[in-house]
């Protein structure tokens, strides 16, 4: 398994023309990079999001693109709950108080009060497979769960006990808002100044989708002005985010280094799935989990 690096662009010059490419991490697979491999048949993404692959170029070239949906939904939902609970119960401020600044000198019942998760209202934006898994977990905490999605799912409402609401209503009434939309043109900066202004002053935002779904400067302003109470992000724009970005200076923001699917068990399953996709693509066969199926001239 190789180390991904942010300093990659010259790699296209360093490697020979490829028949297949597997991506682990989110380095961009640009039109220029694809152009260096005239025989490229398949790109296999280890992950469910494929916004870093220039799909349009692949469509034109008939290159197959595969990804790994489903298999990481539970683990990513687990991370969503981990970030939600950590923010709600001040896990990082506690770390700073106890282990970093070592201010913990006597028992004080008045410090580090958090917010209850049980019986709070969770708003899920984009309820696909991951959102569905989050809803299931949240219901076990007796949370009231609202969701917004392009197509309503009454069957899921029945199954999970979740309520469909408008996007605005979700923002207005939720104590916790979690984002699970794919990154597209429409979802870029889905959460900006106006959306943050609608949210409760006590609300917590969790972004485990993609960095560009949230306007980071608007988020910083909203937190600084107390328009929302806290945030946790597993994804940023860029990734990693510059450590001198003002967002990182706030003590009510948790930034995780893209850990959504980061367990050995899940990554192994993803790797296996991605390998199946790659092998199918190289043979010109139907990909088990294809975004684009092979369509190249033989």
């Amino acid at each position, binding site marked *: 398994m190789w180390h991904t690096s942010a300093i990659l662009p010259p790699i296209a010059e360093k490697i020979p023309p490829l028949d297949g490419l597997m991506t682990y*991490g989110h380095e961009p697979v640009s039109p220029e990079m694809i152009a260096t491999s005239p025989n490229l048949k398949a790109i296999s993404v280890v992950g469910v999001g494929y916004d870093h692959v220039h799909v349009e170029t692949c469509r034109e070239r008939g290159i197959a693109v595969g990804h790994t949906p489903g298999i990481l939904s*539970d683990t990513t939902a687990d991370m969503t709950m981990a970030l939600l609970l950590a923010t709600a119960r001040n896990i990082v401020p506690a*770390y700073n108080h106890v282990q970093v600044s070592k201010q913990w000198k006597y028992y004080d019942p008045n410090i580090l*009060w958090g917010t209850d998760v049980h019986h709070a209202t969770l708003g899920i934006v984009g309820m696909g497979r991951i959102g569905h898994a989050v809803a299931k977990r949240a219901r076990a905490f007796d949370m009231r769960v609202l969701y917004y999605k392009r197509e309503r799912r009454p069957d899921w409402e029945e199954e999970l006990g979740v309520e469909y609401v408008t996007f605005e209503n979700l923002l207005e009434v939720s104590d916790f808002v979690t984002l699970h939309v794919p990154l597209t043109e429409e979802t870029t900066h889905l959460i900006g100044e106006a959306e943050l202004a609608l949210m409760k002053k006590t609300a917590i935002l969790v972004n485990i989708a993609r960095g560009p779904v949230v306007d980071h400067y608007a988020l910083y302003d909203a937190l600084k002005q107390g328009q929302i109470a806290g945030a946790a992000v597993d994804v940023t724009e860029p990734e990693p985010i510059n450590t001198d970005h003002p967002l990182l200076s706030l003590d009510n923001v948790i930034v995780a280094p893209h850990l959504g699917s980061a*367990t050995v068990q899940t990554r192994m399953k993803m790797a296996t799935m991605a390998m199946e996709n790659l092998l199918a693509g190289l043979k010109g066969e139907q990909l088990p989990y294809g975004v684009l199926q092979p369509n190249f001239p033989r």
Partner: protein
Amino acid sequence: MVQPGEEAGLKEKIVAIFVWIAPAVTRELITSLPNLRVVGNCAVGYDHVDLAACAERGVRVGYTPNVLNKTTADMAWALLLASGRKVVEGDSISKNPSTSTFDSNWMGQQVSGTTLGIVGMGRIGYEIAKRAVGFEMKVLYHNRHRKSAEEEERVGATYVPTLAGLLGESDYVVLAAPATGDTHHMMSREQFAAMKPTGVFVNISRGTLVDQDALAEALRGGVISAAGLDVTDPEPLPRDHTLLSLPNLTLTPHTGSATLPTRQAMVQMTVDNIKAVLQGQPMVNEVALPSL
């Protein structure tokens, strides 16, 4: 507020004490207050109150069970998930100026589909078990007495008759037992060794149930993978304590019940407990004192 020099005569006036988990309500304190009638303990644990001394002096003791079950269970889960998925370490990596890339192979432990072992299936343990359903975890429990079949079924929990048995099978172990003579250092070298090397240990009960040197050794040596503690012995830990320097330990300073609604309910219950005694009414949440 009492000004210096005004203490004379105060000890005789005190009929009730409102106390959190600290300072300890010692024999010395109790006997120094000749007219003390009630200790209003604003907590569910009362190991810091000398019950024998209270019994001898006819001092009654209130506590605050039930109102903090759910909030404390939430904290157990916050610690469990933070420990397993390395939230604090991950946050530190993201914010470290030397970080230029994220290592795609830096990973935590799986939670969904694994086994949760609850040691001490009381009211809080039960709330902890309930939440595991959403994560499709298998739930085991060990308790002094086995629960009824209905209680087990409600949270899908399976009884394990020995602590070692539970420890060996669990991926996540959460300790939710009270501090008594029997539970002192119940988690020590042998018990951590019985856990899986990928195992995660969480304690939200009392620090005295854990041999902290053994825990530190287990975390340093990879005997278990991570731990989350809301409670230690003492509280706070000395600033140079070995536990404070471990990257795979998540610590919170006894904030398990720390949300506004829960603290309000606890305070109200404690005030009600105190008033009940002073007004000659039944105390609803009273600690049974040892017989003399």
